[in-house]
């Protein structure tokens, strides 16, 4: 990874010198080596630039604000394969000014979930370095080596494609790791098989944790409304916090419905949730439904139709097998 980061830096320098870009949207080193964060690098200053196993954050949504002004020149954005899908959606929905962006597809071999490492009992991490698939953890209590593959982010566990969309240039993307072997619908299927009350209990226990921090919404490339309906005092459903259980449900059902057919399954909602609610399971349910009911279509499922679509009663018939 360090090698890749260096090469990316060189590439950025080359593009800057050629006058193709003026700024860079990338990841900035944190204090400990596992807390890199999105950052805009300006004036060619790349001192704190990093691209490591913890650069999981999808940068595409920052492009809404960053590409707005025509006078600022082009901004380079670094996109992993799954980041590009959201990027494409934003472009398709006219949320970004594509002409002000230089999208560089970069390789990804799966990103690591620091929470998983911490949960395994490793404490006091001060620095992390990488050597191929090994993470070398320097802690206050000594050094430890772990296999990166054992601590991947949930979204990387079900990585379904290394396809890049809508990029201006692909850089070293042949270094991408393999896609995962896991079936991304497995978890959804498991839930579908539960009885009605088990499902209810499961979601209740999950959604009651929601503190309405709106992180899921803010990171989601499909949730890009100028003003969210839940923030709009005039909408009749505005709520800054969940006043009761119903509103927890309402928020998440409606959010899932609003991104239904547009969700690119980047998994960012679950990654950023401070309460670890598996929000991606709501969106993935819709993806599964759409696939099963309508097949592959070019247009978002709710924005099109065929005259032979299934009737809503299909839901009852399907449910009959597992009450």
């Amino acid at each position, binding site marked *: 990874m360090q090698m890749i980061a260096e090469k990316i830096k060189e590439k950025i320098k080359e593009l800057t010198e050629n006058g193709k870009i003026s700024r860079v949207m990338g990841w900035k080193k944190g204090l400990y080596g596992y807390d890199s964060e999105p950052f805009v690098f300006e004036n060619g200053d790349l001192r704190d630039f990093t691209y490591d196993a913890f650069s999981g954050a999808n940068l595409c949504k920052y492009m809404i604000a960053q590409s707005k002004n025509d006078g600022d020149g082009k901004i380079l954005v670094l996109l992993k394969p799954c980041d590009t899908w959201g990027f494409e959606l934003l472009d398709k929905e006219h949320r970004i000014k594509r002409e002000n962006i230089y999208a560089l597809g970069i390789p990804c071999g799966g990103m690591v979930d620091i929470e998983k490492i911490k949960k395994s009992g490793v404490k006091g991490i001060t620095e992390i370095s990488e050597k191929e698939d090994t993470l070398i953890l320097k802690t206050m209590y000594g050094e430890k080596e772990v296999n990166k593959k054992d601590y991947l982010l949930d979204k990387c566990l079900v990585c379904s494609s290394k396809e890049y969309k809508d990029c201006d240039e692909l850089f070293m993307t042949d270094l991408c790791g393999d896609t995962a072997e896991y079936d991304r619908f497995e978890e959804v299927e498991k839930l579908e098989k539960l009885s009605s009350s088990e499902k*209810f209990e499961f979601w209740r226990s999950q959604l009651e944790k929601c503190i309405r921090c709106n992180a899921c919404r803010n990171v989601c490339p499909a949730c890009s409304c100028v003003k969210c309906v839940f923030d709009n005092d005039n909408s009749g459903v505005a709520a800054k916090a969940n006043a009761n259980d119903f509103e927890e449900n309402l928020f998440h059902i409606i959010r899932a419905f609003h991104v239904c057919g547009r969700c690119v399954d980047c998994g960012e909602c679950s990654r950023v949730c401070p309460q670890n609610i598996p929000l991606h399971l709501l969106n993935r349910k819709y993806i599964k439904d759409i696939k099963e009911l309508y097949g592959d279509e070019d247009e978002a499922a709710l924005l099109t*139709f065929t005259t032979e679509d299934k009737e809503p009663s299909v*839901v009852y018939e399907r449910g009959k097998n597992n009450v």
Partner: protein
Amino acid sequence: MQTDRGVTAEKEFQPKIIAFCCNWCSYAGADLAGSGRLSYSADVKIIRVPCSCRINPMFILRAFQKGADGVILAGCHPGDCHYSTGNYFTRRRMTLLFSMLDYMGIEKERTRVEWISAAEGAKFSATMNEFAGEIKKLGRSKRLGDLRCR
């Protein structure tokens, strides 16, 4: 009704049912049921919308939030929409919404979509009776009821 609490408790459960009807077919079908004196449950209250595609999932959830026990959507038969394609969108939206409600363990039997034309007064009445009966059997909306703002 604090004074006759005992009486209220024994009183038969009267569900609250909202029927969203499109103006051109189902609302006219309801009118036909009326002029034909085809009785149906008084628990059903109709809200008129121009087209079934006007019905936002939020309306349905809002109804449950406020204490409805069942919500039924009625529109023109697919292919007969006054606006030509509105109900096709309704069909997709509601299929997916109901599927999600089911996935979250919320009783799917409390929501339904029916296609009722302006000529189907009898179907309107029969459908509403049948739906009201179903809801009565299910009793008060619990899963959504428990979550309800009281």
